[in-house]
């Protein structure tokens, strides 16, 4: 038997304390296979050992919640017997090492999480963070990640309908690839992972097991260093073709009542799926590895248990239903093998070549991982930016052009045209608006979907920044006319063993919790990705929020495009001209300073509810939330989307008015006769509202001097991305 040395423990990412605990639980020393199993199950990636204690503070309940965190994905009731199943998950480390396959398998993994629950995936989103554009690797990573997301999602025939992209030097050595999948199921046909009962067959379906991705979960639970490229063999390789077959085969089998439990083999593969299913069902599982379909000869038990080969599922069937299930998988030309059975022993027993190679308590593996109360230091919140610190003499329109052509604000068309966003013929709002809108097939309902977070705010103040991320997601859903229902969160941070980073995590979770509570917007699923740092340099704290809302009648939906000339442009919400941490300050003045804008959640709710009521009543069809870049950027986006200009009567307004990033604000364009009554109603509802101007002509003007044509705005907005990606050498 292999001796367990400190070096072996280190290579498995286990501490001495954790090893001591394993020996206590087993009452003996583990063998190498067992050590490997413990190491992946107790990795940060699988066990959430640093965050578990804090995640409990998140609100996860509500009348709309069918399934909160703890299953493969969250489930929300949308009426008429329909349910929405969704989750967001990171694939950061693999995507940095091997961008195409890392991003592709991230998409594949999150889709499996959703169809495991019995849902057909109907939309994909992604939240991406890359390093500085001028960094030597950025272009290669952007190209690879986008191609990988498209390559997988397009083949699956699931539209990729939106997302967000930021560039910042803090991601130079550690990009973020967060993918979100939204699926549709019948409320009474949700599948779960609890392997209840003894003597039920345990079935393996999908691709064969190979040596790829061994210890992927452990890699995702450690910092990077210069030699991270050597970890390339731990990145999995995706095959969307097989996944598409797996999706159809699983849904076909799910239409019967043969399945007791089902779980995808994602991180830590066969190990985590079997241990988690047994632990949740209060049962045990006995596996015979000789029966596992294998891609290559001579694989050891250690390799098979830790492989992260993609496109595989583990199911527990009702006894006697194997034949029926096998016929379905044969039709789809997928491997199908009965590899074990459930027991009542509570143990995960693994046999290989006639001997027992692992005999472990399933519950301890999945539920008794150490929970750490890591020490943390709260971040000192920066002082607000002094108003006098900003150069207010710049001409607003020229500044607008610069901002529209900046990496974080320019058009993402180069990216989303590589995604099939129109397959399934239900995408009623394509990428580029506030939220993507996808019709519930065959109905007049629709889902609004968005992903949001502003990492530069979170860096300055993780609590307010995280609040803002939730509020912005809520606002984006509201801006298309949806009732926001629930979120999934993808918490991307650095090394939690550093008190400063742990402080960011704790504050961000508190911020999310506050906002979710105030906006009745519970968290139903999520994922933590920690250790996002290279050579001791952490990323910006990035708690990405994926929000889903319901549009009850698709005939009453708003989008950002100006529809006609002569509409009154109304600004909803209070404008103080908050420039701290704004894109104006960073892109124009080259500074990342001050405090981020605070979010008043009561005001957010009041303003948003007011706007949504107007949309639902069919009185406002043109709505845009104001976020990155401020009011003038939002206005330009509305003009570009509709091909119609606007005239504002704000001769004396300054930089802070035009580019401040105050929260809880919307721009509306409504028929002139509606304008007056909306202003009066807003006053009654204590919602700040003012008339800004009128849609007009083919240029944007501020009431003095010459305007700027919509064509010129578009040219600036569309130019940066293609030019950046086409450049041969680093910019």
């Amino acid at each position, binding site marked *: 038997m292999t001796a367990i040395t400190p070096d072996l423990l280190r290579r498995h990412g286990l501490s001495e304390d954790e090893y001591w605990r394993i020996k206590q639980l087993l009452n003996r020393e583990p063998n190498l296979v067992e050590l490997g199993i413990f190491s992946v199950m107790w990795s940060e990636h699988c066990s959430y050992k640093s965050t578990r204690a804090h995640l409990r503070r998140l609100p996860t309940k509500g009348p709309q919640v069918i399934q909160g965190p703890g299953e493969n994905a969250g489930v929300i009731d949308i009426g008429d017997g329909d349910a929405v199943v969704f989750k967001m998950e990171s694939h950061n480390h693999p995507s940095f090492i091997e961008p195409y396959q890392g991003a592709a398998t991230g998409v594949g993994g999150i889709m499996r999480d959703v169809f495991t629950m019995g849902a057909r995936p109907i939309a994909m989103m992604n939240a991406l963070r890359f390093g500085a554009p001028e960094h030597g690797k950025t272009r290669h990573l952007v190209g690879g990640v986008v191609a990988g997301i*498209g390559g997988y999602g*397009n083949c699956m025939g699931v539209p990729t309908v939106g997302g967000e992209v930021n560039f910042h030097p803090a991601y130079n050595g550690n990009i973020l690839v967060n993918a979100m999948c939204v699926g549709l199921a019948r409320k009474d046909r949700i599948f779960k992972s609890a392997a209840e009962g003894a003597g039920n067959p345990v079935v393996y379906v999908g691709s064969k097991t190979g040596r790829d991705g061994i210890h992927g979960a452990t890699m995702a639970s450690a910092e990077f260093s210069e030699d991270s490229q050597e970890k390339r063999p731990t990145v999995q390789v995706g095959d*969307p*073709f097989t996944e598409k077959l797996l999706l159809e085969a699983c849904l076909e089998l799910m239409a019967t009542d043969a399945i007791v439990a089902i779980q995808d083999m994602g991180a830590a593969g066969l190990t985590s799926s079997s241990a988690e299913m047994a632990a949740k069902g209060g049962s045990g599982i006995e596996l015979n590895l000789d029966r596992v379909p294998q891609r290559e000869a001579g694989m050891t038990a250690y390799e098979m248990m830790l492989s992260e080969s993609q496109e595989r599922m583990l199911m527990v069937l009702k006894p006697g239903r194997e034949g029926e299930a096998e016929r379905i998988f044969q039709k789809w030309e997928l491997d199908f093998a009965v590899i074990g059975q459930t027991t009542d022993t509570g143990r995960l027993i693994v046999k290989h070549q006639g001997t027992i190679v692992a005999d472990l308590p399933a519950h301890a593996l999945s539920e008794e991982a150490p929970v750490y109360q890591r020490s943390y230091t709260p971040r000192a919140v920066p002082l607000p930016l002094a108003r006098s610190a900003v150069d207010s003499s710049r001409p607003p329109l020229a500044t607008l052009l610069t901002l529209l052509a900046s990496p974080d604000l320019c058009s993402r068309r180069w990216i989303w045209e590589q995604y*099939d966003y129109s*397959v399934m013929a239900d995408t009623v709002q394509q990428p580029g608006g506030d939220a993507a809108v996808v019709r519930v097939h065959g109905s007049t309902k629709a889902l609004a979907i968005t992903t949001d977070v502003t990492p530069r705010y979170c860096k300055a103040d993780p609590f307010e920044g995280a609040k803002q991320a939730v509020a912005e997601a809520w606002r984006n859903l509201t801006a298309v006319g949806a009732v926001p229902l629930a979120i999934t969160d993808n918490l991307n941070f650095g090394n939690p063993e550093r008190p400063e980073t742990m402080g960011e995590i704790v504050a961000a979770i508190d911020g999310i919790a506050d906002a979710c509570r105030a906006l009745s917007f519970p968290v139903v699923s999520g994922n933590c990705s920690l250790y996002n740092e290279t050579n001791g340099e952490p990323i910006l704290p990035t708690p990405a929020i994926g929000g889903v809302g319901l549009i009850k009648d698709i005939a009453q939906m708003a989008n950002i495009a100006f529809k006609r000339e002569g509409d009154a442009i109304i600004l909803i919400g209070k404008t103080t001209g908050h420039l701290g941490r704004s894109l104006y300050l960073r892109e124009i003045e080259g500074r990342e300073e001050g405090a981020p804008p605070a979010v008043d959640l009561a005001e957010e709710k009041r303003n948003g509810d007011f706007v949504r009521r107007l949309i639902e009543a069919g009185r406002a069809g043109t709505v845009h939330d104001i976020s990155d870049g401020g009011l003038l950027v939002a206005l330009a986006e509305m003009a570009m989307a509709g091909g119609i200009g606007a005239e504002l009567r704000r001769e004396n307004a300054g930089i802070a008015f035009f580019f401040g990033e105050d929260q809880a604000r919307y721009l509306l364009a409504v028929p002139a006769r509606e304008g007056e009554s909306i202003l009066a109603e807003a006053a009654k509802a204590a919602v700040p509202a003012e008339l800004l101007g009128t849609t007009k002509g083919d240029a944007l003007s501020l009431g003095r001097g010459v305007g700027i044509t919509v064509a010129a705005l578009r040219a600036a907005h569309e130019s940066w991305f293609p030019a950046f990606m086409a450049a041969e050498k680093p910019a």
Partner: protein
Amino acid sequence: MRSAVIVFPASNCDRDAHDALAQLSGREPHMVWHGDSDVPDVDLIVLPGGFAYGDYLRCGAMAAHSHIMRDIKRKAEQGIAVLGICNGFQILTEAGLLPGALMRNADLKFVCRPVELVVEESQSGFTRKYSKGERVRFPVAHGEGNYFADEATLDRLEGEGRVVFRYAPGENPNGSARDIAGILNEKRNVLGLMPHPERACDPLLGSTTGRALFQSLIESLT
């Protein structure tokens, strides 16, 4: 009009094609598995978009040798209408039912966007409800839609009025020779096109100009 939609492993526009046919013809199309040996007795066979067999080897190459293709070839020769959309067009060229080939897009990237097309030919069962020169707008969504054929073949296609859809000037998304978006076979009963008319049948999706293609078929085949 009785129709059938062929489902290959990893077809993914089969449902979209089904819905467009069902809505416009009022009859449920048959969904036919690629492993079957016969297509039921129908007036129209649709090869939908997707990534049949993962597009491994070459797009459409493996699907072209699928079991069901023998019967489709037979029926095409008998004059039954066959419509190949996107991956279906690729399969038809690989199967030899249409000339030429679809190469990787000139910029080597997948492209999804609505494109403007010119209906070059209204003298066909697929386009009789359009008028010659009419502009329509269908989405494209493909990585390999760059139509290629030798000059003689291209001349012949043009001369015989078999180029049915052409990308409008400035709209060619993939580098296709002579801006070709869709072509007919010699007997004019097989049409392949890269853009997706089935995604242009609903005002909520931005265009309804795809309906006339299915309505043309219904009118000619009912």
